[in-house]
């Protein structure tokens, strides 16, 4: 029986493959993933973690701008992305650095974005990731459109989109979900229920007992998954992808997880949540859990760990250096991407500005 059939969201049963220590709780549910992929998943989880910690440090030093940390949510992002094909689309919210890195965005690009440069959103050709999406909820219908286009063009392709627990209150969430469902568009929606929307706790966001049960409003499957369990997240997305490709429509996946860090670098979470709560969740760290699993599986050792951490730390440091040395946007860049061809009145504004800059320099 499929996962969504076994885990009725109204019964508040959460799908899990690994327990908190990384032991298998449900053997039949362990997804088939080759070792190389498992290690790649682990590598990117660690890369995201290290890049995240470093970004926070850089930001505190005033060297980076606002940044939305991903710490604690790596499994909810790496599991799903590993279950996709590279040609599948990702329509993100704004806290998906781990997913970005796994799906082909470079670390330099993600850093450049949070450094305040639009070129950080110009991903390489063939990378099927949309830019960071700030207006809450609006990414869902982008995914619906991507998926609809994939469907009628008969591509073997789905669109996966992320949103937060808070985002589910938004009208844009509702419209996008309903839209995709009506057309059986191959879309997968993952709600990262990290228990808070900035300071607002989950229970003030909605009265529904689970987020997963919101799927019922759209007549589609919904399931609550342990979002700190990378294998469970992988398995459920794998299954959802198959349904989607078969023309059975979208799936709503609630990834039950926790944001270990602040909402963004401008946020002080101690105002609204207790240390004990954070400590409880640290025990459920998705990276530790996955590492234990890999160690049990004899795929990982402390030595390998040490080497990887060092390697990634260096990579992050070097990448940030590059980003710091990147050029600030030029006048042309600031104007020229508004339209394919610069309209006359805008060209005039640009020329006047250039003349002004020249004049100022000369004085």
């Amino acid at each position, binding site marked *: 029986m499929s996962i969504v059939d076994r885990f009725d969201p109204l019964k508040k049963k959460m799908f899990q493959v690994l327990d908190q220590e990384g032991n298998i709780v449900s053997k039949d549910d362990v997804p088939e993933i080759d070792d190389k992929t498992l290690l790649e998943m682990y590598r990117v989880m660690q890369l995201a973690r290290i890049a995240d910690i470093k970004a926070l440090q850089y930001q505190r030093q005033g060297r980076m701008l606002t940044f939305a940390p991903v710490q604690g949510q790596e499994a909810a992002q790496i599991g799903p992305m590993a279950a996709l094909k590279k040609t599948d*689309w990702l*329509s993100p919210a704004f806290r998906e650095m781990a997913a970005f890195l796994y799906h082909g965005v470079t670390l330099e690009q993600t850093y450049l974005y949070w450094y305040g440069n*639009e*070129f950080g*959103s*110009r*991903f390489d050709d063939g990378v099927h990731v*949309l*830019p960071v999406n700030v*207006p809450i909820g*609006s990414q*869902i*219908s*982008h*995914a*619906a*459109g*991507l*998926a*609809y*286009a*994939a*469907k*009628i*063009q008969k591509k073997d392709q789905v*669109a996966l989109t992320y949103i937060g627990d808070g985002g589910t209150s938004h*009208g*844009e969430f509702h*419209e*996008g979900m*309903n*839209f995709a469902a*009506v*057309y059986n568009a191959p879309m997968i929606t993952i709600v990262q229920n990290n228990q808070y929307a900035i300071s607002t706790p989950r229970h003030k966001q909605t009265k529904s007992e689970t987020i997963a049960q919101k799927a019922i409003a759209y007549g589609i499957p919904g399931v609550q998954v342990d979002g700190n369990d990378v294998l469970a997240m992988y398995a459920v997305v794998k299954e959802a992808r198959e349904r989607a490709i078969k023309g059975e429509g979208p799936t709503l996946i609630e990834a039950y997880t926790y944001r270990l860090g602040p909402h963004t670098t401008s946020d002080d979470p101690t105002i609204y949540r207790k240390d004990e709560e954070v400590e409880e969740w640290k025990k459920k760290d998705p990276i530790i859990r996955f590492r234990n699993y890999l160690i049990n599986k004899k795929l990982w050792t402390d030595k390998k760990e040490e080497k990887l951490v060092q390697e990634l730390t260096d990579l992050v440091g070097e990448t940030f250096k590059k980003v710091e040395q990147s050029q600030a946007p030029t006048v042309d*860049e600031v104007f*020229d*991407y*508004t*339209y*394919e061809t610069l*309209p*006359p*009145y*805008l060209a005039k504004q640009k020329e006047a500005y250039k003349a002004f800059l020249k004049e100022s320099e000369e004085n």
Partner: protein
Amino acid sequence: MAQMTFLQAINQTLDQQMEKDASVVVFGEDAGFEGGVFRVTAGLQKKYGEDRVFDTPIAEAAIIGSAVGMAINGLKPVAEIQFSGFMFPGYNQIAMHLARFRNRSRGKYNLPVVIRMPMGGGVRALEHHSESLETLFAHIPGLKLVVPSTPYDAKGLLTAAIKDPDPVIFFEPKKIYRAGKQEVPEEEYTVEIGKAKIVQKGDDLTIVSWGAVLRDLQKALANYKTDKSIELIDLRTIAPMDSAAVIDSVKKTGRLLVISEQVQSFNVASELMARVNEEAFEYLEAPPQRLNGFDITVPLPKGEHHHAIDEKKMHHAITKILGYKI
């Protein structure tokens, strides 16, 4: 060549473009099976199937938002908003995404999306069915906005809009959907977006208008007795606005009058007046003037005539500006 109404010209254009380009898809509330509440998309679903021509749920944000996604993934969406007054729930998607994806992705994603919307008053309709919302699109960088006033331009501009790599808002003045026919070529042609049209040459006064009002204005001018000669410009594109054409004209005539159905404050006239000030101030023989609706909610039908621009109002404004002496 065939005689066509404004509405038929649009329908024929959609048909032609769908035929030529398999990536064009047409959708909106009731736009599929019944062909839209005005029947603009009639017959298309039957011809091109439900995948390419379809009804949507009542969800303007999703209509625009999904168009964004479709455009990124290889389609050319031509979406319909049932009335421009119902674009507001989709305005977030229009202003924050449709207009910005190109800039946000530094040119990676162009969005060749057309959003069609019936606009304007004069059809004795309910609240929210008579608005003229040009400003809300023209103020947003990254959008184009066109308003044809003839069947010929409707076809040419819509063809250009569908081929345009940037998002285009396509206003259809609903009052003239079925008002009169014109020869429209069968074959494909485009009217350049961003180019105003000089409808009538003149030396003493420049009048700028567009859409349904322009049609009424032409009648009003025919009935206006004067020995002065009036240059009439159909703006056609509101964004990017061909202010150069207006400025050139004003340099010749020294007088500018802008006539529209919009409310007054922050309308197209204000922006044109500002640009004329900036670039042709020395040529002005009279203060630029505007004739438009008032800064009120468009009244329901029994009071709509107060807000509407009729011939009397037009004559009055023309007489006033022609009579101005410094």
